[in-house]
Protein backbone atom coordinates (compact mmCIF):
# COMPACT_ATOMS: atom_id res chain seq x y z
CA UNK A 1 0.00 0.00 0.00
CA UNK A 2 1.39 3.40 -0.84
CA UNK A 3 2.58 5.19 2.25
CA UNK A 4 0.79 8.22 0.93
CA UNK A 5 -2.53 6.82 2.11
CA UNK A 6 -1.26 7.51 5.63
CA UNK A 7 -1.92 11.16 5.04
CA UNK A 8 -5.58 10.38 5.18
CA UNK A 9 -5.46 7.42 7.52
CA UNK A 10 -5.44 8.47 11.07
CA UNK A 11 -6.45 11.77 12.52
CA UNK A 12 -3.97 11.31 15.35
CA UNK A 13 -1.02 10.88 13.08
CA UNK A 14 -0.09 14.53 13.37
CA UNK A 15 -0.76 14.77 17.04
CA UNK A 16 2.83 14.19 18.12
CA UNK A 17 3.14 17.89 18.76
CA UNK A 18 0.58 18.82 21.34
CA UNK A 19 -1.97 21.30 20.07
CA UNK A 20 -2.37 24.54 21.96
CA UNK A 21 -5.03 24.70 24.66
CA UNK A 22 -8.49 25.13 23.28
CA UNK A 23 -7.23 24.34 19.83
CA UNK A 24 -7.49 20.63 20.17
CA UNK A 25 -9.26 19.89 16.95
CA UNK A 26 -7.57 16.86 15.42
CA UNK A 27 -5.82 17.05 12.09
CA UNK A 28 -8.45 17.01 9.38
CA UNK A 29 -8.44 14.40 6.71
CA UNK A 30 -9.14 16.94 3.99
CA UNK A 31 -5.55 17.91 3.54
CA UNK A 32 -4.34 21.28 2.40
CA UNK A 33 -7.48 23.24 1.92
CA UNK A 34 -6.30 26.61 0.60
CA UNK A 35 -7.29 29.64 2.63
CA UNK A 36 -8.63 31.46 -0.38
CA UNK A 37 -11.32 28.89 -0.86
CA UNK A 38 -13.41 28.80 2.27
CA UNK A 39 -16.04 26.24 3.09
CA UNK A 40 -19.29 26.74 1.30
CA UNK A 41 -20.59 26.40 -2.18
CA UNK A 42 -19.45 29.71 -3.58
CA UNK A 43 -16.24 31.66 -3.66
CA UNK A 44 -15.36 35.13 -4.86
CA UNK A 45 -12.52 35.29 -7.36
CA UNK A 46 -9.86 37.81 -6.25
CA UNK A 47 -8.96 38.28 -9.93
CA UNK A 48 -12.30 39.30 -11.43
CA UNK A 49 -14.56 39.57 -8.36
CA UNK A 50 -16.99 37.10 -9.89
CA UNK A 51 -18.73 34.58 -7.71
CA UNK A 52 -17.63 31.07 -8.63
CA UNK A 53 -19.22 27.74 -7.88
CA UNK A 54 -16.78 25.71 -5.74
CA UNK A 55 -17.26 22.42 -7.49
CA UNK A 56 -16.84 24.06 -10.86
CA UNK A 57 -13.63 25.69 -9.65
CA UNK A 58 -12.24 22.39 -8.39
CA UNK A 59 -13.06 20.75 -11.70
CA UNK A 60 -11.14 23.50 -13.44
CA UNK A 61 -7.98 22.74 -11.37
CA UNK A 62 -8.71 25.74 -9.10
CA UNK A 63 -8.41 28.21 -11.97
CA UNK A 64 -11.11 30.84 -12.51
CA UNK A 65 -12.85 30.00 -15.80
CA UNK A 66 -13.57 33.67 -16.43
CA UNK A 67 -10.31 35.48 -15.77
CA UNK A 68 -7.76 32.69 -15.40
CA UNK A 69 -6.84 33.55 -11.81
CA UNK A 70 -4.87 30.65 -10.34
CA UNK A 71 -6.05 29.84 -6.80
CA UNK A 72 -3.73 28.17 -4.31
CA UNK A 73 -3.55 24.42 -4.58
CA UNK A 74 -2.61 22.28 -1.58
CA UNK A 75 0.21 19.76 -1.76
CA UNK A 76 -2.02 16.71 -1.98
CA UNK A 77 -4.28 18.21 -4.60
CA UNK A 78 -1.24 19.30 -6.60
CA UNK A 79 0.13 15.76 -6.55
CA UNK A 80 -3.18 14.43 -7.80
CA UNK A 81 -3.12 17.02 -10.62
CA UNK A 82 0.41 16.20 -11.74
CA UNK A 83 0.83 12.48 -11.22
CA UNK A 84 -0.82 9.66 -13.21
CA UNK A 85 -2.71 8.83 -10.06
CA UNK A 86 -2.28 9.35 -6.35
CA UNK A 87 -2.08 5.57 -5.99
CA UNK A 88 1.32 5.69 -7.68
CA UNK A 89 2.66 8.03 -4.99
CA UNK A 90 4.85 6.75 -2.19
CA UNK A 91 5.54 9.39 0.39
CA UNK A 92 9.08 9.75 1.71
CA UNK A 93 10.25 10.87 5.14
CA UNK A 94 6.75 11.38 6.52
CA UNK A 95 8.19 10.57 9.93
CA UNK A 96 10.32 13.74 10.16
CA UNK A 97 9.03 16.21 12.71
CA UNK A 98 9.88 19.79 13.49
CA UNK A 99 11.50 20.71 16.77
CA UNK A 100 11.95 24.14 18.30
CA UNK A 101 15.74 24.48 18.20
CA UNK A 102 15.86 28.10 19.40
CA UNK A 103 13.06 27.76 21.93
CA UNK A 104 11.28 30.39 19.86
CA UNK A 105 8.20 31.69 21.70
CA UNK A 106 4.92 30.37 20.34
CA UNK A 107 6.48 28.13 17.69
CA UNK A 108 5.13 24.80 18.96
CA UNK A 109 1.65 26.27 19.32
CA UNK A 110 1.69 27.70 15.83
CA UNK A 111 2.95 24.40 14.39
CA UNK A 112 0.20 22.49 16.16
CA UNK A 113 -2.36 24.92 14.83
CA UNK A 114 -1.00 24.55 11.29
CA UNK A 115 -1.04 20.78 11.58
CA UNK A 116 -4.61 20.80 12.81
CA UNK A 117 -5.73 23.18 10.08
CA UNK A 118 -4.03 21.46 7.17
CA UNK A 119 -3.67 17.82 8.14
CA UNK A 120 -0.05 18.07 7.05
CA UNK A 121 2.93 17.49 9.33
CA UNK A 122 5.10 20.12 7.61
CA UNK A 123 5.12 22.54 4.67
CA UNK A 124 6.42 20.05 2.12
CA UNK A 125 5.28 16.63 0.93
CA UNK A 126 7.96 14.59 -0.89
CA UNK A 127 8.05 11.18 -2.48
CA UNK A 128 8.08 9.14 -5.63
CA UNK A 129 5.25 8.87 -8.10
CA UNK A 130 4.57 8.18 -11.74
CA UNK A 131 4.13 10.77 -14.44
CA UNK A 132 3.45 9.49 -17.93
CA UNK A 133 4.03 5.99 -16.49
CA UNK A 134 7.63 6.86 -15.53
CA UNK A 135 8.93 7.36 -12.01
CA UNK A 136 9.70 10.87 -10.78
CA UNK A 137 10.81 12.22 -7.43
CA UNK A 138 8.46 15.02 -6.54
CA UNK A 139 8.24 17.58 -3.75
CA UNK A 140 5.40 20.06 -3.26
CA UNK A 141 5.45 23.00 -0.88
CA UNK A 142 2.09 23.90 0.59
CA UNK A 143 1.32 27.58 1.11
CA UNK A 144 -1.36 26.84 3.70
CA UNK A 145 1.29 25.47 6.07
CA UNK A 146 3.35 28.32 7.51
CA UNK A 147 3.23 30.10 4.11
CA UNK A 148 5.25 27.24 2.67
CA UNK A 149 8.35 28.44 4.51
CA UNK A 150 11.54 26.41 4.86
CA UNK A 151 12.81 25.30 8.25
CA UNK A 152 14.95 22.28 9.10
CA UNK A 153 12.34 19.66 8.16
CA UNK A 154 11.51 21.20 4.78
CA UNK A 155 15.24 21.52 4.03
CA UNK A 156 15.95 17.96 5.13
CA UNK A 157 13.04 16.43 3.21
CA UNK A 158 14.01 18.25 0.01
CA UNK A 159 17.67 17.31 0.45
CA UNK A 160 16.72 13.63 0.84
CA UNK A 161 14.43 13.93 -2.18
CA UNK A 162 17.39 14.92 -4.34
CA UNK A 163 19.66 12.34 -2.73
CA UNK A 164 17.26 9.45 -3.34
CA UNK A 165 16.52 10.65 -6.85
CA UNK A 166 20.27 10.59 -7.49
CA UNK A 167 20.52 7.02 -6.20
CA UNK A 168 17.61 5.93 -8.38
CA UNK A 169 18.59 8.06 -11.36
CA UNK A 170 15.11 9.51 -11.74
CA UNK A 171 14.07 13.10 -12.53
CA UNK A 172 13.05 15.58 -9.84
CA UNK A 173 10.12 17.98 -9.87
CA UNK A 174 9.75 20.52 -7.07
CA UNK A 175 6.65 22.70 -6.98
CA UNK A 176 7.43 25.71 -4.83
CA UNK A 177 3.81 26.11 -4.00
CA UNK A 178 4.21 29.19 -1.93
CA UNK A 179 7.59 29.96 -0.55
CA UNK A 180 7.28 32.03 2.57
CA UNK A 181 11.07 32.10 2.42
CA UNK A 182 13.31 30.79 5.17
CA UNK A 183 11.30 30.23 8.35
CA UNK A 184 12.05 32.88 10.96
CA UNK A 185 11.23 30.66 13.94
CA UNK A 186 14.24 28.41 13.30
CA UNK A 187 16.53 31.38 12.82
CA UNK A 188 19.97 30.75 11.34
CA UNK A 189 19.23 27.03 10.90
CA UNK A 190 16.59 27.95 8.31
CA UNK A 191 19.16 30.04 6.46
CA UNK A 192 21.51 27.05 6.41
CA UNK A 193 18.81 24.99 4.67
CA UNK A 194 19.36 27.24 1.66
CA UNK A 195 22.95 26.01 1.46
CA UNK A 196 22.04 22.39 2.17
CA UNK A 197 19.29 22.19 -0.48
CA UNK A 198 21.34 24.07 -3.10
CA UNK A 199 24.18 21.60 -2.60
CA UNK A 200 21.77 18.68 -2.92
CA UNK A 201 20.49 20.10 -6.23
CA UNK A 202 24.02 20.37 -7.60
CA UNK A 203 25.01 16.86 -6.50
CA UNK A 204 21.84 15.50 -8.09
CA UNK A 205 23.22 16.82 -11.37
CA UNK A 206 25.64 13.86 -11.41
CA UNK A 207 22.64 11.69 -12.31
CA UNK A 208 22.29 13.54 -15.63
CA UNK A 209 18.58 13.55 -14.90
CA UNK A 210 16.60 16.79 -15.12
CA UNK A 211 15.42 18.86 -12.17
CA UNK A 212 12.31 20.86 -13.07
CA UNK A 213 11.43 23.71 -10.71
CA UNK A 214 7.84 24.91 -10.85
CA UNK A 215 7.21 28.31 -9.29
CA UNK A 216 3.70 29.03 -8.06
CA UNK A 217 2.24 31.88 -6.10
CA UNK A 218 4.17 33.01 -4.09
CA UNK A 219 7.83 31.96 -4.34
CA UNK A 220 9.91 34.42 -2.36
CA UNK A 221 12.92 34.96 -0.12
CA UNK A 222 15.05 32.02 0.90
CA UNK A 223 13.03 29.50 -1.08
CA UNK A 224 13.48 31.51 -4.26
CA UNK A 225 17.13 32.29 -3.48
CA UNK A 226 18.04 28.60 -3.24
CA UNK A 227 16.67 25.37 -4.75
CA UNK A 228 13.72 27.02 -6.54
CA UNK A 229 16.10 29.11 -8.69
CA UNK A 230 18.39 26.22 -9.50
CA UNK A 231 16.20 24.10 -11.76
CA UNK A 232 17.51 22.91 -15.11
CA UNK A 233 14.11 24.07 -16.26
CA UNK A 234 12.15 26.74 -14.42
CA UNK A 235 8.43 26.97 -15.12
CA UNK A 236 6.05 29.47 -13.53
CA UNK A 237 2.29 29.55 -13.21
CA UNK A 238 0.71 32.77 -14.53
CA UNK A 239 0.40 35.70 -12.16
CA UNK A 240 2.50 34.21 -9.38
CA UNK A 241 4.50 36.48 -7.09
CA UNK A 242 8.16 35.62 -7.62
CA UNK A 243 11.11 37.45 -6.13
CA UNK A 244 13.66 37.82 -3.38
CA UNK A 245 12.59 40.81 -1.28
CA UNK A 246 8.93 41.19 -0.38
CA UNK A 247 7.14 43.91 -2.36
CA UNK A 248 6.31 45.89 0.78
CA UNK A 249 9.96 45.99 1.78
CA UNK A 250 10.97 47.13 -1.69
CA UNK A 251 8.29 49.82 -1.59
CA UNK A 252 9.45 51.05 1.79
CA UNK A 253 13.10 51.05 0.74
CA UNK A 254 12.71 53.00 -2.48
CA UNK A 255 9.90 55.21 -1.13
CA UNK A 256 7.82 55.08 -4.29
CA UNK A 257 4.98 52.90 -5.45
CA UNK A 258 5.87 49.81 -7.41
CA UNK A 259 5.24 49.47 -11.14
CA UNK A 260 2.25 47.30 -11.95
CA UNK A 261 3.14 43.69 -12.56
CA UNK A 262 6.28 43.99 -10.41
CA UNK A 263 7.58 40.57 -9.32
CA UNK A 264 4.94 38.61 -11.21
CA UNK A 265 5.71 35.53 -13.31
CA UNK A 266 5.42 37.73 -16.40
CA UNK A 267 7.99 40.15 -14.91
CA UNK A 268 10.30 37.20 -14.20
CA UNK A 269 9.89 35.89 -17.76
CA UNK A 270 10.53 39.29 -19.31
CA UNK A 271 13.67 39.74 -17.21
CA UNK A 272 14.98 36.32 -18.11
CA UNK A 273 14.56 34.60 -14.75
CA UNK A 274 12.25 31.74 -15.82
CA UNK A 275 12.04 29.59 -18.95
CA UNK A 276 8.31 29.81 -19.54
CA UNK A 277 4.92 30.55 -18.07
CA UNK A 278 2.64 27.54 -18.05
CA UNK A 279 -1.06 27.59 -17.30
CA UNK A 280 -2.15 25.03 -14.76
CA UNK A 281 -4.06 22.96 -17.28
CA UNK A 282 -0.89 22.68 -19.36
CA UNK A 283 1.45 21.95 -16.48
CA UNK A 284 1.19 18.17 -16.45
CA UNK A 285 1.48 17.85 -20.26
CA UNK A 286 4.45 20.25 -20.28
CA UNK A 287 6.28 18.33 -17.57
CA UNK A 288 5.54 15.10 -19.43
CA UNK A 289 6.87 16.54 -22.68
CA UNK A 290 10.15 17.69 -21.11
CA UNK A 291 10.66 14.35 -19.41
CA UNK A 292 9.85 12.46 -22.60
CA UNK A 293 12.48 14.47 -24.45
CA UNK A 294 15.03 13.48 -21.81
CA UNK A 295 14.20 9.82 -22.27
CA UNK A 296 14.45 9.96 -26.06
Amino acid at each position, binding site marked *: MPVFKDLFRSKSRYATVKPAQGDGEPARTQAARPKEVPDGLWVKCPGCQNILYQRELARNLKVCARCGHHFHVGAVERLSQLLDSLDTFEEWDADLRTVNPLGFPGYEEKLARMQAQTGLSEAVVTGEGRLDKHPVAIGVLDFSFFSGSMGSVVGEKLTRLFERALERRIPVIVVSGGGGGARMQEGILS*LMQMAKTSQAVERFGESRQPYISVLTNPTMGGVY*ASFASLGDYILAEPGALIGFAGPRIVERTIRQSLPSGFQTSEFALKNGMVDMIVERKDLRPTLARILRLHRA
Partner: protein
Amino acid sequence: MVNGVFEWERPLIELENRIKELQAFTKEKGIDFSEELATLERKADRLRAEIFSNLTPWQRVQLARHPRRPTTLDYINMICTDFIELSGDRCVRNDEAMVGGIALLDGIPVTIIGPQKGRDTKENIRRNFGLPHPEGYRKALRLMIQAEKFGRPIVTLIDVVGAYPGIEAEQRGQGVAIAENIRRMSFLRVPIVCVITGEGGSGGALAIGVGDRVLMMENAWYSVISPEMCAEILWKDTSRAPEAAAVLKIGAQDLLELGVIDEVIPEPLGGAHRDRELAAQRLKEAVVRHLRELLPLSGDELVRRRLEKYRRMGRVAQVTEERLQAVSESPRD
Protein backbone atom coordinates in the same frame (compact mmCIF):
# COMPACT_ATOMS: atom_id res chain seq x y z
CA MET B 1 23.37 57.12 20.02
CA VAL B 2 24.97 60.57 20.15
CA ASN B 3 28.40 61.19 18.58
CA GLY B 4 29.12 57.49 18.38
CA VAL B 5 28.35 56.97 22.06
CA PHE B 6 25.56 54.70 23.27
CA GLU B 7 23.50 55.69 26.30
CA TRP B 8 24.58 52.56 28.15
CA GLU B 9 28.31 53.30 27.79
CA ARG B 10 28.03 57.03 28.48
CA PRO B 11 29.32 56.95 32.12
CA LEU B 12 32.47 55.17 30.95
CA ILE B 13 33.08 57.45 27.99
CA GLU B 14 32.67 60.52 30.21
CA LEU B 15 35.13 59.09 32.70
CA GLU B 16 37.61 58.26 29.95
CA ASN B 17 37.32 61.82 28.65
CA ARG B 18 38.03 63.21 32.14
CA ILE B 19 41.14 61.04 32.38
CA LYS B 20 42.34 62.33 29.01
CA GLU B 21 41.73 65.93 30.04
CA LEU B 22 43.60 65.43 33.30
CA GLN B 23 46.52 63.84 31.47
CA ALA B 24 46.66 66.77 29.07
CA PHE B 25 46.48 69.21 31.95
CA THR B 26 49.31 67.41 33.76
CA LYS B 27 51.49 67.62 30.70
CA GLU B 28 50.67 71.24 30.07
CA LYS B 29 51.03 72.60 33.59
CA GLY B 30 53.55 70.12 34.98
CA ILE B 31 51.42 69.47 38.07
CA ASP B 32 51.47 65.92 39.40
CA PHE B 33 48.00 64.34 39.41
CA SER B 34 49.28 60.76 39.27
CA GLU B 35 47.40 59.66 42.39
CA GLU B 36 44.09 61.07 41.15
CA LEU B 37 44.74 59.58 37.73
CA ALA B 38 45.42 56.15 39.20
CA THR B 39 42.14 56.27 41.12
CA LEU B 40 40.23 57.31 38.02
CA GLU B 41 41.93 54.60 35.92
CA ARG B 42 40.94 51.95 38.46
CA LYS B 43 37.40 53.23 38.38
CA ALA B 44 37.40 53.19 34.59
CA ASP B 45 38.67 49.60 34.54
CA ARG B 46 35.88 48.55 36.88
CA LEU B 47 33.29 50.34 34.79
CA ARG B 48 34.62 48.88 31.54
CA ALA B 49 34.43 45.36 32.90
CA GLU B 50 30.97 46.03 34.29
CA ILE B 51 29.53 47.48 31.08
CA PHE B 52 31.26 45.41 28.45
CA SER B 53 31.48 41.94 29.96
CA ASN B 54 27.73 41.46 30.12
CA LEU B 55 26.51 42.86 26.83
CA THR B 56 22.95 42.02 25.84
CA PRO B 57 22.32 40.65 22.33
CA TRP B 58 20.92 44.04 21.32
CA GLN B 59 23.95 45.94 22.64
CA ARG B 60 26.12 43.67 20.50
CA VAL B 61 23.93 44.46 17.47
CA GLN B 62 24.51 48.14 18.21
CA LEU B 63 28.26 47.59 18.40
CA ALA B 64 28.15 45.67 15.11
CA ARG B 65 26.59 48.78 13.54
CA HIS B 66 28.91 51.30 15.15
CA PRO B 67 29.82 54.01 12.63
CA ARG B 68 33.52 53.72 13.50
CA ARG B 69 33.58 49.92 13.29
CA PRO B 70 36.24 48.83 10.79
CA THR B 71 34.77 48.19 7.33
CA THR B 72 35.84 45.53 4.87
CA LEU B 73 38.43 47.78 3.18
CA ASP B 74 39.72 48.92 6.60
CA TYR B 75 40.37 45.31 7.55
CA ILE B 76 41.87 44.47 4.16
CA ASN B 77 44.28 47.38 4.49
CA MET B 78 45.22 46.39 8.03
CA ILE B 79 45.70 42.64 7.46
CA CYS B 80 46.93 42.40 3.85
CA THR B 81 49.79 43.72 1.78
CA ASP B 82 49.81 44.36 -1.96
CA PHE B 83 46.01 44.54 -2.21
CA ILE B 84 44.91 45.03 -5.81
CA GLU B 85 41.24 45.84 -6.13
CA LEU B 86 39.40 44.26 -9.08
CA SER B 87 36.13 45.58 -10.45
CA GLY B 88 32.98 44.61 -12.26
CA ASP B 89 30.81 41.63 -13.04
CA ARG B 90 31.62 41.80 -16.79
CA CYS B 91 27.93 42.09 -17.48
CA VAL B 92 26.07 45.08 -16.01
CA ARG B 93 28.30 47.43 -14.02
CA ASN B 94 30.71 47.72 -11.11
CA ASP B 95 28.77 47.47 -7.86
CA GLU B 96 30.73 49.44 -5.28
CA ALA B 97 28.72 47.93 -2.45
CA MET B 98 30.88 44.84 -2.96
CA VAL B 99 34.66 45.03 -3.10
CA GLY B 100 37.22 42.38 -3.88
CA GLY B 101 40.66 41.74 -5.17
CA ILE B 102 43.90 39.88 -4.75
CA ALA B 103 46.43 40.41 -1.98
CA LEU B 104 49.03 38.78 0.22
CA LEU B 105 47.89 37.67 3.65
CA ASP B 106 50.84 36.71 5.84
CA GLY B 107 52.64 35.89 2.62
CA ILE B 108 49.80 33.76 1.22
CA PRO B 109 48.26 34.97 -2.04
CA VAL B 110 44.50 35.21 -1.47
CA THR B 111 41.37 36.50 -3.14
CA ILE B 112 39.63 38.66 -0.57
CA ILE B 113 36.04 39.85 -0.96
CA GLY B 114 33.32 41.57 1.02
CA PRO B 115 30.46 44.07 1.05
CA GLN B 116 31.64 47.61 1.71
CA LYS B 117 29.73 50.16 3.78
CA GLY B 118 30.54 53.84 3.36
CA ARG B 119 32.54 55.60 6.05
CA ASP B 120 30.65 58.87 5.54
CA THR B 121 27.42 59.96 3.86
CA LYS B 122 29.02 60.65 0.52
CA GLU B 123 30.71 57.26 0.39
CA ASN B 124 27.57 55.59 1.66
CA ILE B 125 25.59 56.94 -1.28
CA ARG B 126 28.23 55.74 -3.73
CA ARG B 127 28.24 52.35 -2.05
CA ASN B 128 24.47 52.11 -1.58
CA PHE B 129 25.00 51.76 2.19
CA GLY B 130 26.80 48.51 1.56
CA LEU B 131 23.70 46.81 0.14
CA PRO B 132 24.79 44.88 -2.97
CA HIS B 133 22.78 44.43 -6.15
CA PRO B 134 22.91 41.11 -8.03
CA GLU B 135 25.92 42.41 -10.00
CA GLY B 136 27.77 42.79 -6.70
CA TYR B 137 27.20 39.13 -5.93
CA ARG B 138 28.12 38.22 -9.49
CA LYS B 139 31.35 40.20 -9.21
CA ALA B 140 32.13 38.27 -6.03
CA LEU B 141 31.43 34.98 -7.82
CA ARG B 142 33.59 36.00 -10.79
CA LEU B 143 36.51 36.67 -8.46
CA MET B 144 35.97 33.40 -6.62
CA ILE B 145 35.99 31.41 -9.85
CA GLN B 146 39.17 33.22 -10.84
CA ALA B 147 40.66 32.28 -7.46
CA GLU B 148 39.83 28.63 -8.08
CA LYS B 149 41.50 28.77 -11.49
CA PHE B 150 44.76 29.92 -9.94
CA GLY B 151 44.47 27.69 -6.87
CA ARG B 152 44.23 30.72 -4.62
CA PRO B 153 42.39 30.47 -1.30
CA ILE B 154 39.40 32.74 -0.74
CA VAL B 155 38.70 34.95 2.27
CA THR B 156 35.35 36.71 2.56
CA LEU B 157 34.72 39.45 5.13
CA ILE B 158 31.00 39.83 5.68
CA ASP B 159 29.33 43.00 6.91
CA VAL B 160 26.00 43.47 5.18
CA VAL B 161 22.50 44.33 6.33
CA GLY B 162 21.13 42.39 3.39
CA ALA B 163 20.95 42.13 -0.37
CA TYR B 164 19.45 45.36 -1.73
CA PRO B 165 15.64 45.25 -1.99
CA GLY B 166 15.01 47.40 -5.06
CA ILE B 167 13.27 47.29 -8.42
CA GLU B 168 16.41 46.90 -10.53
CA ALA B 169 17.84 44.37 -8.08
CA GLU B 170 14.73 42.25 -8.57
CA GLN B 171 14.77 42.77 -12.34
CA ARG B 172 18.32 41.51 -12.53
CA GLY B 173 17.55 38.49 -10.38
CA GLN B 174 18.67 39.07 -6.80
CA GLY B 175 17.29 35.68 -5.78
CA VAL B 176 18.92 33.88 -8.68
CA ALA B 177 22.28 35.57 -8.03
CA ILE B 178 22.23 34.52 -4.37
CA ALA B 179 21.25 30.94 -5.23
CA GLU B 180 23.98 30.71 -7.88
CA ASN B 181 26.62 31.99 -5.47
CA ILE B 182 25.60 29.52 -2.79
CA ARG B 183 25.71 26.66 -5.28
CA ARG B 184 29.03 27.60 -6.88
CA MET B 185 30.83 28.45 -3.63
CA SER B 186 29.90 25.07 -2.22
CA PHE B 187 31.90 23.28 -4.91
CA LEU B 188 34.98 25.50 -5.31
CA ARG B 189 38.13 23.43 -5.03
CA VAL B 190 40.14 25.95 -3.01
CA PRO B 191 40.05 26.77 0.72
CA ILE B 192 37.34 29.28 1.74
CA VAL B 193 37.41 31.09 5.07
CA CYS B 194 34.47 33.41 5.80
CA VAL B 195 34.35 35.89 8.64
CA ILE B 196 31.21 37.72 9.76
CA THR B 197 32.88 40.95 10.84
CA GLY B 198 29.78 43.04 11.53
CA GLU B 199 26.29 42.36 10.24
CA GLY B 200 25.33 39.07 8.66
CA GLY B 201 21.98 39.82 7.06
CA SER B 202 20.30 36.67 5.77
CA GLY B 203 20.68 35.53 2.14
CA GLY B 204 22.76 38.60 1.34
CA ALA B 205 25.40 37.30 3.76
CA LEU B 206 25.09 33.61 2.88
CA ALA B 207 25.68 34.46 -0.79
CA ILE B 208 29.34 35.05 0.12
CA GLY B 209 29.28 32.97 3.29
CA VAL B 210 29.55 29.30 2.32
CA GLY B 211 32.99 28.20 3.49
CA ASP B 212 35.21 25.50 4.92
CA ARG B 213 35.45 27.63 8.04
CA VAL B 214 33.01 30.32 9.08
CA LEU B 215 34.27 32.59 11.84
CA MET B 216 32.56 35.44 13.61
CA MET B 217 33.79 38.52 15.42
CA GLU B 218 32.59 38.55 19.01
CA ASN B 219 30.02 41.33 18.56
CA ALA B 220 28.86 40.48 15.05
CA TRP B 221 25.36 39.17 14.33
CA TYR B 222 24.22 36.68 11.70
CA SER B 223 20.57 35.91 11.19
CA VAL B 224 17.84 34.81 8.82
CA ILE B 225 16.08 38.15 9.46
CA SER B 226 17.03 41.46 11.07
CA PRO B 227 15.85 42.01 14.65
CA GLU B 228 13.75 44.98 13.47
CA MET B 229 11.87 43.00 10.83
CA CYS B 230 11.38 40.09 13.19
CA ALA B 231 9.91 42.47 15.78
CA GLU B 232 7.60 43.90 13.17
CA ILE B 233 6.35 40.47 12.15
CA LEU B 234 5.96 39.21 15.70
CA TRP B 235 4.60 42.27 17.46
CA LYS B 236 4.02 44.83 14.67
CA ASP B 237 6.47 47.03 16.56
CA THR B 238 10.07 47.62 15.43
CA SER B 239 10.93 49.24 18.76
CA ARG B 240 10.88 45.76 20.25
CA ALA B 241 13.94 44.78 18.17
CA PRO B 242 16.01 44.25 21.35
CA GLU B 243 13.66 41.42 22.38
CA ALA B 244 13.75 39.99 18.88
CA ALA B 245 17.56 40.03 18.93
CA ALA B 246 17.42 37.81 22.01
CA VAL B 247 14.87 35.25 20.76
CA LEU B 248 16.48 34.92 17.31
CA LYS B 249 19.82 33.77 18.78
CA ILE B 250 21.97 35.80 16.41
CA GLY B 251 25.13 36.33 18.47
CA ALA B 252 28.48 34.67 17.83
CA GLN B 253 28.26 32.46 20.93
CA ASP B 254 24.74 31.30 19.98
CA LEU B 255 25.85 30.37 16.47
CA LEU B 256 28.88 28.51 17.80
CA GLU B 257 26.57 26.47 20.03
CA LEU B 258 24.21 25.80 17.11
CA GLY B 259 27.15 24.47 15.10
CA VAL B 260 26.78 27.06 12.36
CA ILE B 261 30.15 28.76 12.91
CA ASP B 262 33.55 27.36 13.84
CA GLU B 263 35.14 30.03 16.01
CA VAL B 264 34.45 33.31 17.76
CA ILE B 265 37.18 35.95 17.34
CA PRO B 266 37.42 38.01 20.53
CA GLU B 267 37.16 41.77 20.06
CA PRO B 268 38.89 44.45 22.08
CA LEU B 269 36.83 45.20 25.19
CA GLY B 270 33.91 47.39 24.17
CA GLY B 271 34.02 46.56 20.47
CA ALA B 272 36.33 46.50 17.44
CA HIS B 273 36.09 50.28 16.97
CA ARG B 274 37.79 50.92 20.32
CA ASP B 275 41.03 49.35 19.12
CA ARG B 276 40.91 48.75 15.37
CA GLU B 277 44.52 47.54 15.07
CA LEU B 278 44.05 44.95 17.80
CA ALA B 279 40.76 43.79 16.23
CA ALA B 280 42.47 43.44 12.85
CA GLN B 281 45.43 41.60 14.37
CA ARG B 282 43.15 39.02 15.98
CA LEU B 283 41.14 38.63 12.79
CA LYS B 284 44.32 38.07 10.81
CA GLU B 285 45.70 35.54 13.29
CA ALA B 286 42.50 33.47 13.13
CA VAL B 287 42.11 33.59 9.34
CA VAL B 288 45.76 32.70 8.70
CA ARG B 289 45.63 29.82 11.19
CA HIS B 290 42.56 28.33 9.47
CA LEU B 291 44.00 28.89 6.00
CA ARG B 292 47.22 27.08 6.94
CA GLU B 293 45.16 24.13 8.18
CA LEU B 294 43.20 23.99 4.93
CA LEU B 295 45.98 24.63 2.43
CA PRO B 296 47.41 21.07 2.48
CA LEU B 297 44.00 19.56 1.60
CA SER B 298 43.18 18.58 -1.98
CA GLY B 299 40.28 20.12 -3.86
CA ASP B 300 38.32 16.85 -3.59
CA GLU B 301 38.88 16.68 0.13
CA LEU B 302 37.90 20.32 0.69
CA VAL B 303 34.63 19.92 -1.20
CA ARG B 304 33.86 16.59 0.47
CA ARG B 305 34.32 18.05 3.95
CA ARG B 306 32.45 21.25 3.10
CA LEU B 307 29.41 19.35 1.85
CA GLU B 308 29.50 17.04 4.85
CA LYS B 309 29.50 20.03 7.17
CA TYR B 310 26.45 21.67 5.58
CA ARG B 311 24.65 18.33 5.21
CA ARG B 312 24.45 18.13 9.00
CA MET B 313 22.88 21.57 9.46
CA GLY B 314 19.40 21.76 10.91
CA ARG B 315 17.55 19.99 13.71
CA VAL B 316 14.78 17.51 13.08
CA ALA B 317 13.05 14.79 15.08
CA GLN B 318 12.05 11.40 13.78
CA VAL B 319 8.89 9.66 14.88
CA THR B 320 9.07 5.89 14.91
CA GLU B 321 6.28 3.66 13.66
CA GLU B 322 5.68 2.43 17.22
CA ARG B 323 5.41 5.98 18.44
CA LEU B 324 2.96 6.83 15.68
CA GLN B 325 0.99 3.76 16.61
CA ALA B 326 1.05 4.63 20.30
CA VAL B 327 -0.08 8.15 19.60
CA SER B 328 -2.97 7.05 17.44
CA GLU B 329 -4.12 4.54 20.04
CA SER B 330 -3.92 6.74 23.10
CA PRO B 331 -7.02 8.75 23.88
CA ARG B 332 -6.69 12.45 23.15
CA ASP B 333 -7.27 15.10 25.78
